[in-house]
């Protein structure tokens, strides 16, 4: 619902933001690059990961039914929600039934899609983000600006100030180790006292009814082990067929996301506390959220959007994202994946400007571990968006461009005319204005390259 152009301009003007982003992106790109130094292994692993995701999507309805069956057999309670509002309601009902007043939460982008925090707070439930980055964001009253590193836009001075202001008894320090210690202390008892834990799911395994959750901090383990109730929320596309399928995806995910061979913890949750277990939640709930995904699945051109495993590599490598940061997109998912996903789940009315916010350079496609054809989908979305708009100055200009390039005579004529009088077009002419507002006006060469070549004696094509 934002205005990408305006936001981007403001972001570009912030030297601090650009510095924070540049440092972070350079680090993430280098670490990922080191993980995939063996080009042959990368291409084979990537082919396998892509195959797993495509196969899962090809069998999506069967796999979801199977997942429901195996989870239920494991005593995990499965809920379905078409919309974020329905999913929020399910969460609240579970909390109310269990008398849970405080919730500890692990990082989950689907819960961001649901705006779960705001909803629960409105309903009198205290919800605490426990991933360090998310904790920072929650204290600051902001939203994550990156799907893997939520507070990547902030530097240590900002976090130091925030902790000093918002956490009781916290002294000002810019040392990341000391800041981390402050957060550890502030949250430690909260895990033990919370009425429920809420997390996302990275992969759900249909054959065994297992929820996989990757993390480094241990907050995911705490949130799914200590409170009496665990609620997991996931998009319906996250299901895979077998446990074996998890191996390649896990490797691709952690190496692409943060350049780690594996995260510190990989949780595989297959049931609530069993009769003879001594710990673990007494109830585990799985909420399957659609939020537009089933419609994307029905559209063959857009379906590959659902292959995404949310590694964030596309944003780290995007020349647009790495300059403007996540908030400019005013969306839950920023960067290249956000540009294709947001208009599809929330509509062109809100996010119609995102598909245009790309130079189609394809850096995202080169690094995507599961070959989501981001640029193809961007072009698809642009075409569909144009259709909804009808005739515009832009569409007329492009139609003219197309005709001109398809006819050699016309091409020669137009380039010659522009070469002679193009300089007379004023800076503020329609279409040109958007370009010249922040850039020099392009100068037309008096002679086109074709003509120079011909004059130089290269008269064959």
């Amino acid at each position, binding site marked *: 619902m934002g205005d990408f152009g305006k936001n981007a301009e403001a972001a570009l003007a912030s030297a601090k933001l650009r510095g924070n982003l540049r440092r972070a992106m350079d680090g993430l790109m280098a670490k990922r690059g080191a993980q995939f130094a063996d080009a042959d292994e990368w291409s084979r692993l990537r082919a396998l990961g892509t*195959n797993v995701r495509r196969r899962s999507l090809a069998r999506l309805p069967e796999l979801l039914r199977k997942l429901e069956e195996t989870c239920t057999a494991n005593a995990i309670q499965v809920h379905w929600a078409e919309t974020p509002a329905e999913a929020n309601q399910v969460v609240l009902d579970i909390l109310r039934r269990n008398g849970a007043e405080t919730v500890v939460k692990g990082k989950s982008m689907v819960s961001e899609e649901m705006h779960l925090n705001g909803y629960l707070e409105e309903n009198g439930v205290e919800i605490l983000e426990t991933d*360090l980055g998310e904790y920072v964001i929650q204290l600051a009253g902001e939203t994550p600006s990156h799907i893997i590193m939520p507070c990547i836009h902030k530097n240590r001075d900002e976090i130091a100030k925030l902790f000093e202001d918002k956490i009781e008894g916290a002294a000002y320090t810019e040392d990341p180790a000391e800041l981390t210690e402050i957060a550890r202390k502030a949250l*430690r008892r909260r895990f033990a006292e919370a009425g429920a834990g809420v997390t996302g799911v990275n992969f759900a395994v249909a054959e065994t009814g297992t929820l996989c959750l990757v993390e*480094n901090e241990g907050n995911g383990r705490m949130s799914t082990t200590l409170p009496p109730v665990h609620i997991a929320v996931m998009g319906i596309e996250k299901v895979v067929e077998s446990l074996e399928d998890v191996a390649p995806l896990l490797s691709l995910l952690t190496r692409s996301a943060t350049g780690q*061979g594996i995260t*510190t913890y990989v949780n595989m949750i*297959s049931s609530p506390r069993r009769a*003879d277990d*001594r710990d673990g939640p007494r109830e585990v709930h799985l909420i399957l959220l659609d939020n537009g995904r089933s419609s994307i699945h029905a559209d063959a051109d857009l379906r590959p959007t659902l292959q995404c495993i949310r590694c964030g590599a596309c944003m780290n490598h995007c020349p647009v994202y790495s300059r403007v940061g996540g908030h400019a997109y005013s969306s839950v998912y920023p960067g290249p994946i956000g540009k294709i996903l947001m208009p599809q789940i929330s509509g062109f009315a809100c996010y119609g400007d995102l598909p245009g916010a790309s130079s189609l350079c394809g850096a995202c496609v080169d690094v995507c571990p599961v070959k989501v054809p981001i640029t193809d989908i961007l072009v698809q979305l642009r075409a569909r968006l144009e259709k909804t708009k009808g005739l515009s100055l832009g569409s007329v200009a492009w139609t003219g461009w197309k005709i001109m390039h398809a006819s050699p005579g016309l091409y020669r004529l137009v380039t010659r005319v522009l070469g002679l009088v193009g300089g007379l077009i004023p800076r503020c002419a329609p279409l040109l204005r958007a370009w010249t507002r922040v850039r020099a006006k392009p100068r037309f060469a008096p002679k086109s390259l074709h003509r120079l070549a011909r004059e130089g004696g290269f008269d064959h094509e």
Partner: protein
Amino acid sequence: MSESARDAILGRLDAGARPPEVPDGDFQVMAGRPGTVSERIERFRTAIEAANAEVHATTPAGWPAFLMARLNEWGIDRIAFGRESWAGRQLIGDRGEAANGLVPFEGAIEDFKETLFACDAGLTTTRGAIAETGSLILWSGPDEPRALSLVPPVHVALVRTGSIHATLHEAMTADRWRDGLPTNAVLVSGPSKTADIEQTLVYGVHGPRRLVVILLADVPGGDDGP
């Protein structure tokens, strides 16, 4: 509500154009380098040390003495463990009761929480380990509750060298995980960490700050093997 949401979602998926079937992929790339036992031990050690874990080696019979002799040096006054696991039984040994500083997990977590939060360390066995990524495979259960490896600031884990697999894929297929997963299985590859503040790596966030791995050479080819 959820009944109708379920039907609507599945209905849309069923009604949509059926994507072409995708054949199974080639899992060959997951096999990694199998290697001999000592190569696997070395790879495991290098990988998990790179993630800031400490690795020691001793024998399957000698580890309780090895551990007890070092608790002091490691600054551990109270270490929690599962009484009924093979490690727990070995640790208590003929004494029939736990020595000073050894704290068996009693009852359910609700009753044991305060005690556990006050312990300096937790001891667990492992189902196995993974050489490629330097990971422990923890298989929690009644004998060894999952909080043991999570709540105390130090986690001490016993790894039998013969149980180190080359890759995760090999571990899950060779060991047939699909036939019976516990409530919670977890791969642990170092002490808990974060890089959320300016990508600066910090160890010890919400999970243990220190991970101590004790290798038990139970097959020839290990550190103490022939």
